[in-house]
């Protein structure tokens, strides 16, 4: 059981949440989901929310503040995988359990957190790859691919890239990666990079665009339209995330495949928090429910989108 801070079990739990930041709509949806779920949940007395603006030091600092405040449970959405040993050890010494949300940390520190709830970026990359292998299996002249990467060095960018090409290579698809650049997960840069792709490589013969998130994908779609091509037809497009706007574009026929990465797991998280606080046994990894969607499913799924 968790620390018996001043909250006390009967008044509900005090939970500290060290969020990555507010760098994307996905992230904001995630924060909102967690905050709303905590507010609605009687078992939670207070959620201490800290936005770390994408810096590990700020997250570490926030965790130390949580320890000083003697919260009952700490939830951490780690910015990076490494470097958590000391601070998680401090939490353990103070008797406060830690739950990871969203991203994971290096395997060697597995003992220092109770459980992780979140998405598997490599798996997302693999899903995208599987669809590509299926779709282009009988493309005789080889599949020409453009990739819009997320922020250079970030875990989702690295994993979505790795998972995707792992499958392509494993399945022996005959493909050529024509160009791959970072669009920093933003529409602005996604569009700019795509424009340059178009002028440099022209679009004729390019089969597939793989964008690591919605926003870059949507930016690229605009660039493609402005250059006089039909996104979704002249070039097939895969995006990861699946926001409302992404699905809308799918419904409009402008993209072909969406790999969902679901940020709305606040309620699921609160359940885990309570279990952990009660000292119940929990799995080391709880995947968030996520799906993949192709053109046939966009229309039906659109109304279910929450962000």
């Amino acid at each position, binding site marked *: 059981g968790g620390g018996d801070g001043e909250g006390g079990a009967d008044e509900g739990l005090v939970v500290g949440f060290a969020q990555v930041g507010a760098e994307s709509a996905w992230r904001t949806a995630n924060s909102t989901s967690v905050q709303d779920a905590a507010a609605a949940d009687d078992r939670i007395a207070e959620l*201490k929310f800290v936005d770390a603006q994408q810096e590990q*030091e700020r997250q570490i600092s926030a965790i130390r*503040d949580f320890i*000083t405040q003697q919260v009952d449970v700490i939830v951490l959405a780690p910015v*990076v995988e*490494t*470097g*958590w040993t000391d601070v998680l050890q401090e939490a353990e010494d103070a008797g406060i359990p830690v739950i990871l949300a969203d991203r994971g940390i*290096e395997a*060697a520190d597995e003992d220092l957190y109770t459980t992780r709830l979140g998405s598997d970026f490599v798996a997302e990359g693999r899903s995208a790859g599987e669809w590509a292998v299926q779709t282009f299996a009988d493309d005789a002249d080889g599949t020409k691919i453009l990739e819009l990467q997320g922020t250079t060095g970030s875990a989702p960018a690295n994993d979505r890239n790795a998972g995707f090409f792992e499958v392509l290579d494993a399945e022996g698809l005959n493909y050529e990666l024509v160009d791959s650049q970072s669009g920093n997960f933003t529409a602005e840069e996604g569009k700019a990079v795509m424009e340059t792709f178009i002028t440099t490589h022209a679009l004729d013969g390019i089969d597939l665009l793989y964008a690591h998130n919605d926003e870059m994908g949507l930016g690229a779609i605009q660039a493609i339209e402005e250059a006089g091509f039909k996104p979704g037809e002249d070039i097939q497009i895969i995006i990861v995330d699946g926001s409302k706007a992404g699905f809308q574009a799918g419904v409009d026929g402008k993209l072909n495949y969406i790999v969902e990465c679901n940020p709305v797991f606040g309620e699921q998280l609160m359940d885990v928090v309570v279990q952990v606080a009660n000292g119940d046994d929990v799995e080391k990894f709880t995947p968030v429910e996520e799906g993949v969607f192709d053109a046939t499913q966009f229309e039906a799924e659109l109304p279910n989108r929450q962000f």
Partner: protein
Amino acid sequence: MSTHQLTERPSRSMLFDGLARYIPIGATVALLLALYGGGVANYPKFDSPQVIAKLFIDNAPLLVIAVGMTFVILSGGIDLSVGSVMAFATMACAWLTVDAGISAPLAVALVLAFGTAWGLLIGAVIHYFDVQPFIATLVGLFLFRGLTLQISDTDVSMRDVEFFQWGMVHAVDVGEIRDGGFWLPNLSFVAFAVVIVAFTVLHYTRFGRGVYAVGGSESSALLMGLPVARTKIGVYAVSGFCAALAGVLAAFATKSANPLANVGAELDAIAAVVIGGTLLTGGAGFVLGTVAGVMVWGMLNTLIAFQGNLSSWWARIAMGVLLLAFILLQRVLARSGEKRRT
């Protein structure tokens, strides 16, 4: 020789002349206390000594780069490269020890030497080629971020390097936090040492006084026959060294290197220096002011963490408002001590 009094007595008291330049730092310290008092009054556990101790745990690297920045700003320059150099230094530590298998103390020495050399180089470019410091060091900002990413585009762990365990070992450990105890790791004391050395150098050595003179008026310093070149290049070397050292401290703190770490750290450092009462135009300010500035910066963040119910955007706005209130109060306090002109 006649020593009759030719000139009339100074009107302002010596006391005032001596104190006028302490007003900005005095204001900073007073407001820091006010912030702390506000925190204690509003949040339970804010009076835990660990709240203060923590300012020097997480902010130790920031403190070190801010001290280096103080030298540069006092001389009338600016160094935008510190954040990137810091990230590069951490990454270089990881690369040298984990990949290249060099012994950690040697790696650290190499990194520190490299930081200093970079400072010397950019200082020489600034001085001899008269390139604006903002631009010359902006080159460093881009360059080292690029090089860091080229070493590795993912984070690298140094957990198995024995040497880096030393930094977080508790140097002081007084009781459990929950019982009102606190602890400080070794690396905080490295930062304290940097502050003490910097203070001594700035106030009690020729180099230090030269920094103030060059910041006051570079052309005058030159005509006075001061070693302007050595001073100007020296401050960038100090800053480069401090940035590299901060990178090493970061390696101690997390035992991991992250290519995207410390983005914008230069702005944090500049903010801390300026909040501490140092003028960006050079020539006026104190290292201890910078320490106070870093504490204010950390304290604002702590307040927001203790408040805990702010959304991302309200947290940013709150930070801005706190900073604003702080700066305006500081201006009011400082102004009452300044000559008033029309």
